[in-house]
């Protein structure tokens, strides 16, 4: 396991996270994230074999509610906060999904 991040790796992660970065940010984050990961290396000192992972502090159940119809957020209100709504059609508008022109 490598705990040093190259700028190219930072770019790959930024794309996975859907973040555009400037060249300065890419280089800065490469240094800073490397420092954080090096700090986190200390976890490897601990023997955790056979220790179950904790994903949550509560013993979670999946509560079920009765299957009854309840009002939800009205469409017009949901569209109110959108940057580019089509109110007449009741849609959120987005740029094309596939390919460039």
């Amino acid at each position, binding site marked *: 396991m490598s705990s040093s991040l190259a700028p190219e790796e930072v770019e790959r992660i930024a794309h996975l996270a859907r973040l555009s970065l400037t060249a300065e940010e890419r280089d800065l984050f490469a240094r800073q994230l490397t420092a954080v990961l090096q700090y986190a290396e200390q976890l490897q000192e601990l023997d955790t074999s056979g220790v179950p992972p904790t994903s949550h502090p509560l013993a979670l159940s*999946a509560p079920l509610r009765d299957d009854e119809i309840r009002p939800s957020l009205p469409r017009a209100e949901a569209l109110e*906060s959108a940057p580019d709504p089509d109110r007449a059609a009741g849609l959120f508008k987005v740029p094309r999904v596939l390919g460039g022109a």
Partner: protein
Amino acid sequence: MTLPFTAAAVRRAVASGRVAAVDVCQAALDRIAQADSALNAFRHVDAEGALARAAEIDRRRDDLMHLPLLGVPVALKDNICTRRMPTTASSHVLEGYCPPYDAEVVERLESAGAIIVGKTNCDEFAMGSSTENSAYGVTRNPWDLERIPGGSSGGSAAAVAARLVPLALGSDTGGSIRQPAALCGVTGFKPTYGRVSRYGLLAFASSLDQIGPIATCIEDAALATSVLAGHDPRDATSVDASVPDFASSIVEGSLTGLRVGVPRTLMSEGVEAGVLSAIEAALGVLASRGAKLLDVELPHSRHGIAAYYLIATAEASSNLARYDGVRYGVRGKGIDRTLIDMYEHTRGAGFGAEVKRRIMLGTYVLSAGYYEAYYRKAQQVRTLISRDYDAAFEQVDVIALPTSPTGAFRLGERTADPVLMYLADVFTVGANLAGVPAISVPCGFTADNLPVGLQLTSRKMEEGTLLRAAAAFERATDWHERQPAAVTAGG
């Protein structure tokens, strides 16, 4: 005539008709207007809405006089959804966003007669320990305007410390209520995970986030917690358990029989001398009230920061995927050939540096090839840390620690070094990882005259024990009455 200030005193005075809610509310608004250009504790003040609500309370006083927070002005951290006020989590990506619903805690406060006066500044999406990560400027510490108030609920802590409002809500993912409360010299309480509904709290790390009060005394913190706590079917992680009357749990004076554990090994390095001496004196006070001090070990806690920052960022990378310029907030302009261009540009321009760092760290530790070594490992260490608390709580009822290893640091002192900034949370992240309740109470000052907080932790769902110990400490000291010199514009 002098108006009452604390929540308990305001409630009594308004309910009895001695004081009008409108006058209490106007006084809070006047203090905010006077001080906030120097502090920047508030992101938004709704003077008109607050005064209208206060007038309604005065008009309907006979019907409402039983309400536990009648006429109490309250401020909310800006990551708590409010229908009538903007909610931005101090991020550009949500600039101007007004949610179409109120958080459960907002409904509970209003049903209890509270008056919401505004929203407070915080680190962007609650990610930070200094409030310097707000997209709308840092909040300043009322004790020293050249220093940070702590974070991420820095605006809420500064607003209460400067006595602008008696009560403010924060959220605590790794110490974000307790650490700013400590650094500003006020009381901050993170209840047990699941005690308070997270419905309408903008999610940062869902297995760690918890809402709680910041106040000037234990009585107010207890009063607020009784209002906030309780099952909410809209939050699947909300605990379905009865809520004790916390205000009555603080009446008893003596701590005879209470066992207080002190993790001396954990405190043995990296703690500022002035913090350590204030904590030692505080432990002496607890002993003088009848508590029995015992050494305990939390052997894995020194790995808490590393585990916390891997888990919290992993959860954040998923939670913050929703800010994509489609349904709410601000869409990045200019580069929008395709949907993915639009996402990347919206998020690249809308998020600040720390939020981007954390999303990237979280994305990395969840990505193929790194999941086992980082994320799963951190979750296993979380188990070890929780087991440490379980073992300690077999021997003791309460664990005492400093809230923060240092007093408030200077503006800009740690912004260039994320790891140094993260170390501010060394004593607070354990309670979030284990899900246990924890409170910070004022317990003295450093050599620089900066407040120090004593942190007390108890078993899950035993907030009553915690509040009783904190109240006994408060009664034996006057640290909670110390106030910073009045902050005025330009001064």
